[in-house]
């Protein structure tokens, strides 16, 4: 499983890529997409919506189940990856290319882990 070292990771299995201090892309980790299985549906917020650290901003559905996606940061949605609405399988195929939302004006963030700490975290969770 692949977990790039230039990203940060949340305990709820999202990745965060900071583009600058106040702007970041958010997606599902490789571990998350593998655990969820084939993704067939995603609900995304709209640009301008506020997201809050630790709260759900989206839900994704695999063939079998629905899962919430939590925001690791508080801020405002600048952009959503609309490609995923028609091609949710991109989150399985390329979890780090398939970002869900871009957040700007970040005011707060959850406690995030680096890649090696994240791997230790989910291994201990299993």
């Amino acid at each position: 499983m692949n977990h790039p070292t230039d990203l940060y990771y949340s305990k709820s299995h999202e990745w965060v890529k900071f583009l600058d201090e106040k702007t970041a892309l958010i997606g599902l980790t490789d571990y998350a997409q593998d655990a969820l299985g084939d993704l067939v549906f995603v609900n995304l917020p709209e640009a301008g919506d506020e997201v809050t650290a630790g709260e759900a901003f989206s839900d994704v559905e695999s063939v079998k189940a629905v899962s919430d996606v939590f925001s690791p940061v508080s801020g405002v949605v600048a952009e959503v990856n609309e490609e995923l609405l028609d091609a949710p399988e991109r989150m399985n195929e390329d979890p780090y290319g398939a970002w869900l939302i871009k957040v700007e004006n970040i005011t707060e963030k959850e406690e995030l882990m680096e890649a090696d700490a994240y791997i230790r975290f989910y291994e201990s969770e299993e």
Partner: protein
Amino acid sequence: MEKKTPLYDAHMRHGGKMVPFAGYLLPVQYGTGVIAEHMAVRTTCGLFDVSHMGEISCIGKDARKNLNHMLTNDYTVMYDGQARYSPMCNEAGGVVDDLIVYKVRDDHYFIVVNAANKDKDFAWMKEHAFGDAVFTDLSDQVAQIALQGPKAPEILKKLAGEEQIPVKYYSCKFHCRIAGMDCIISRTGYTGEDGFEFYLAPEEAEKLWELLLETGKEEGLICCGLGARDTLRLEAAMPLYGHEMDDEITPLEAGLGAFVRLGKEAFIGRQALERGGAPGRKRVGLKATGRGILREHLDVYAGGEKVGVTTSGTFAPYLKEPVAMALLGTDHTKPGTAVEVDVRGRRVAAEVVALPFYQKNKNEREVSL
């Protein structure tokens, strides 16, 4: 603590993601994922461990009378080796379980029941047995493997002589031998495709599993898990106990009227079914016309009024759209009826459609080799 099926080690070796199901640890999927497994069964072939299913024999000169008394279908005229599906009703007309009966001979039948219900079923059968009929729970002595998909006959022909391969859908051959292993080969399944189910001793299950996988390699045979089993049966609109029927849903409501023979001798539940008349709700198919995936236990609305509830739902991998089955008031069961489904607080538009969603070779019940 969940039990392991005789194929547990094989699942681990092949990368099965194990989950607890009906008291057993079974693979929900393998590394290829539910969609690839589903598509393999629709286009080539898939292999399933269904050893969790329960098997019960019914032996004695009153065996057939017992079946006709306990089951809604009619078992009077059957040839040896024929299989027949039936609901088993309680006095109120609700469903205790749905099952398949194989006729071995006049005084001997082999019954296959749902894993989650096998103890309940066995107790029910013993409680209602009469005359010369002995019910025996064989579940721990029988493993079951399903080979499903259009390539299944081709694969099996490489391993079994023609005389061992049942030709008719819903029939079986007893006392078959594949590579020295004794088994029953049945032309049945739960996927909406052609295919076979093998019943054999647990000690030999792993050997047959590996032999089938190896033999079907060039046809594209892969291991499939419970996830694909559910999406396949749902796409083919096959009912699942605990969803489309249960203790409080009658077979008539579940659209299984063809398996309820009111014209035969008295059977458990018949009075209630007759008294109840035409059911006030019926099983229908739904397709989402709005954005969203329909799941089980969601409220269905028409014109702002609740008209029923979904019983199963998923994203159908072959049809590539969200589908569901639902029990709706009979005023709302006509194909084309517009409804709304409450998906976690959001109303998703859907349409009533005819069942099944998917059907291979429409109207063709008999298959040939």
